[in-house]
């Protein structure tokens, strides 16, 4: 059965009772989390599920099945779920709802390559269907190490759990989706040998952030920006995802990934797509993702010779952050001595299409930078003639439109304004809009939104197979060139703006915004 839902209007047309409802009806569902005792499940998935339950936003019938390696009783697993929810939920749990939610949870122990795990799973899912008197929708959430993704998918297929005739079956895959184009293609091949593409929900949790979704509203619901949104008026675009923290306890993952794989290949390229895509004809999954893929395919894939000119990488050394001494990357626990993994990456890309030809897109991401900041800055071209240049107008700068994803989600427009006084002196001022000041409700956690969409079957905010491969196609040559290069990443001090070497990839007249 199809895994996809229609638009809200289509659902309302089929079920007249759904018209006008804030929450669309969800099919009764059994959600299976593989890696149920892992960090992601504890910190994000269980709290998100509880909060959906609290808000009455889970399906009318809901069962949670946790699958993980260690042997333990259902009661023990429920106690762990409760502990995680109490520790990480955004709100204090309601005792009655929490108790009822925990009763939905069951545990299946075993290794992911053990056939018996899947037969027990099939038995349990069958029992839930029987209790409900109808087949429940099924969602398998792979919150495991990536090496287990194909193992679990193939085992689900072998046990006949990948499809059923009267209710949807969905597969949710966490990032990273491969570590190279070849791996991503192979993973897609193995996943799509068992599930159809419309059953697969590849999570990029950035897409669940309200401000990322708002970028499309901002661009396509406001007539004043779209006429300027092209190569005629835009000088360059700069996308930054900076973190002030180090790698913490993630050395095992991070040292194999690095900043390019960790942030640029997925989150930042998705932000780039939101900036550069054409307006979809209809706001549905197919159309939105088609437009994003067109952008990714329009990006010139760098040749090995070009990589040095369009990329920069760095690795943080010891420094000071927030008044504290912090160690350098190679001194972090678990990082191999002499590691050459980049903790900072910067790229200059171009989207070769009618709208964007010649406009550089600067992307950068890194750890242990001056502060935590994710933003998209669109720099407009300077005015052709400045009549006030003789009047001490040294402060005049081209307009910049900055969309901040975190913290302080909002949009600011940098304009030139006259300094009060007798002379025509200009300086830049900011016209600011903060989302927090203009909406009554807080943004839901990204995982709440994304899990809600999985249960609804709406894949708009998930990454399609061709999208993932197009993202890797852009990053692969850079990673290969870096791997073959004899040069180590440039060092930068923790708490700084990143390596000075990043300046090298900027075109004349352009500069990085301060982090």
């Amino acid at each position, binding site marked *: 059965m199809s895994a996809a839902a229609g638009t809200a209007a289509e659902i309302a047309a089929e079920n007249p009772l759904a018209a006008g409802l*804030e929450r669309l009806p969800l099919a009764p569902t059994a959600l299976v989390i593989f890696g149920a005792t892992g960090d992601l499940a504890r910190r994000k998935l269980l709290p998100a599920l509880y909060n959906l339950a609290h808000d009455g936003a*889970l399906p009318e019938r809901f069962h949670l099945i946790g699958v993980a390696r260690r042997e333990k009783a259902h009661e023990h697993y429920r106690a762990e779920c409760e502990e995680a929810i109490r520790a990480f939920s955004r709100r204090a749990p309601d005792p*009655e709802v929490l108790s009822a939610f925990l009763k939905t949870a069951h545990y299946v122990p075993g290794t992911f390559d053990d056939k018996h795990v899947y037969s027990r799973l099939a038995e349990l899912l069958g029992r839930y269907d029987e*209790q409900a008197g109808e087949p429940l929708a099924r969602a398998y959430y792979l919150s495991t190490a990536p090496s287990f993704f194909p193992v679990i998918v193939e085992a689900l297929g072998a046990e006949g759990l990948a499809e059923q005739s009267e209710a949807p079956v969905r597969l949710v895959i966490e990032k990273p989706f491969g570590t190279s184009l070849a791996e991503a293609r192979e993973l897609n091949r193995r996943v799509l040998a068992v599930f159809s593409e419309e059953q697969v929900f590849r999570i990029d949790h950035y897409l669940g952030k309200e401000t990322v979704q708002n970028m499309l509203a901002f661009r396509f619901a406001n007539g004043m920006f779209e006429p300027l949104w092209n190569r005629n008026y835009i000088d360059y675009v700069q996308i930054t995802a900076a973190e002030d923290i180090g790698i913490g306890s993630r050395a095992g993952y991070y040292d194999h990934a690095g900043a390019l794989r960790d942030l640029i290949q997925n989150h930042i390229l998705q932000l780039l797509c939101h900036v550069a895509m054409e307006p979809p004809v209809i706001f549905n999954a197919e159309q939105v993702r088609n437009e994003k893929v067109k952008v990714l395919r329009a990006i010139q894939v760098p040749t090995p010779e070009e990589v040095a000119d369009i990329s920069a990488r760095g690795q943080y050394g010891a420094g000071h952050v927030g008044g504290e001494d912090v160690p350098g990357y190679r001194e972090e626990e678990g990082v191999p001595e002499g590691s050459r993994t980049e903790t900072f990456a910067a790229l200059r890309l171009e989207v070769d299409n009618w709208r964007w030809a010649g406009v550089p897109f600067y992307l950068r991401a890194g750890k242990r930078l001056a502060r935590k900041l994710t933003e998209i800055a669109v720099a407009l071209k300077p005015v052709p003639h400045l009549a006030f240049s003789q009047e001490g107008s040294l402060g005049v700068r081209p307009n910049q439109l900055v969309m901040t994803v975190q913290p302080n989600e909002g949009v600011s427009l940098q304009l030139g304004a006259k300094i009060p006084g007798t002379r025509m002196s200009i300086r830049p001022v900011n016209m600011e809009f903060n989302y927090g000041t203009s909406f009554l409700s807080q943004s839901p956690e990204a995982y709440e939104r994304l899990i809600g969409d999985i249960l609804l079957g709406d894949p708009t905010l998930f990454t399609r197979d061709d999208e993932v491969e197009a993202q890797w196609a852009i990053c692969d040559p850079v990673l290969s060139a870096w791997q073959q290069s004899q040069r180590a990443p440039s060092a930068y001090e923790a708490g700084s703006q990143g390596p000075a070497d990043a300046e090298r990839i900027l075109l004349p007249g352009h500069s990085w915004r301060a982090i």
Partner: protein
Amino acid sequence: MTDALWSEDRTTPEAIDRALRELVHRRHMEDGGFVPARTLNMVCFIDADYAGEVANRLRQVGRYEPSRLIILAYDHRRSSLQARVNVAAAHDPAPGELALLHESVQIRLGERHMDDLLTIVDPLVITDVPTLLWSPHGHREAIDALAPLAQSVLIDSAAEPIWREALDGACALAERLYVVDLAWVRPAPWRERIAAAFARPSRRAELGAIAAVTVRHHPDFCASALLLLGWLASRLQWRVEPLTTHGSAPSRLAGKARSRRQEVALAIEPDSREAAPGLAGVTLSTASGRSLSLDRGAGGLHAHERTREGEERRWIILGASRGEGGVLGQGIRQALLRDLTYRPALGRAREMIPA
């Protein structure tokens, strides 16, 4: 909570507006992270004797606090305006972050000010931000006077003693303003759950086969029950007629509707055991013999299904009660949205009011 306060007896709207500007400016100068919220004006007209009770209700709305709250506290003897202004943030801004400022103005006024309400309030609402009116103690004349500066009005049809008047009043207001009716907001989760029960394509056909609906409610919340039936009737295009009282309780009502296929038996029953405001339960039965009951219970709605073969199933639909503070908060939030299903439901509910 950090506050900046101003108050003045024998004051004017101009002085109050100036105080608001100065307090906001002062907070921003204290710390650039203080920024004023600019989402919604809310104007409340209340009896001065109950100002504390209303303030208490508004404190419970949590994150749905209006950006600027203007409370007009009416004391008919009062001859001059007395005002108190408070510009507060829930917390001080953390370095590099923002803290939202919410402004509240309480004006005590008297009978002699009633003809000038619009000129008193108009200078105080934030321009270009939607304005919601609320008069929880009646005072329809205040709503009428202030309607030109508002886009929406908050009412609670269930709080009115006479259903007909409550629903007629809601209908009249809806001609002028967008009506947010707490008697409609309160049972929103019930509507969502009933819709979900018919979400499956295999179940959707049963929508046309609904043969009986019984709505159980807290004895004071008959209007919510009527609105729920009105919603079903309007969405499913049932023709309805006035219900009749049935049994000893005046709000025990029964009657019929006509769907495309068959007659639908309707019943509204007060449940004296129900302590929570709003609905207590709903039972829908189909011509094929299936029935589904949803009843308020611990942890959410308790569902009980009986199939046409006589099989019984029970389960819990998870969800926390929002409490009356949460319902009021949702009502305030609804002022920024538009639910186009309320008016048709209200229309059908009025048709069902006993003659």
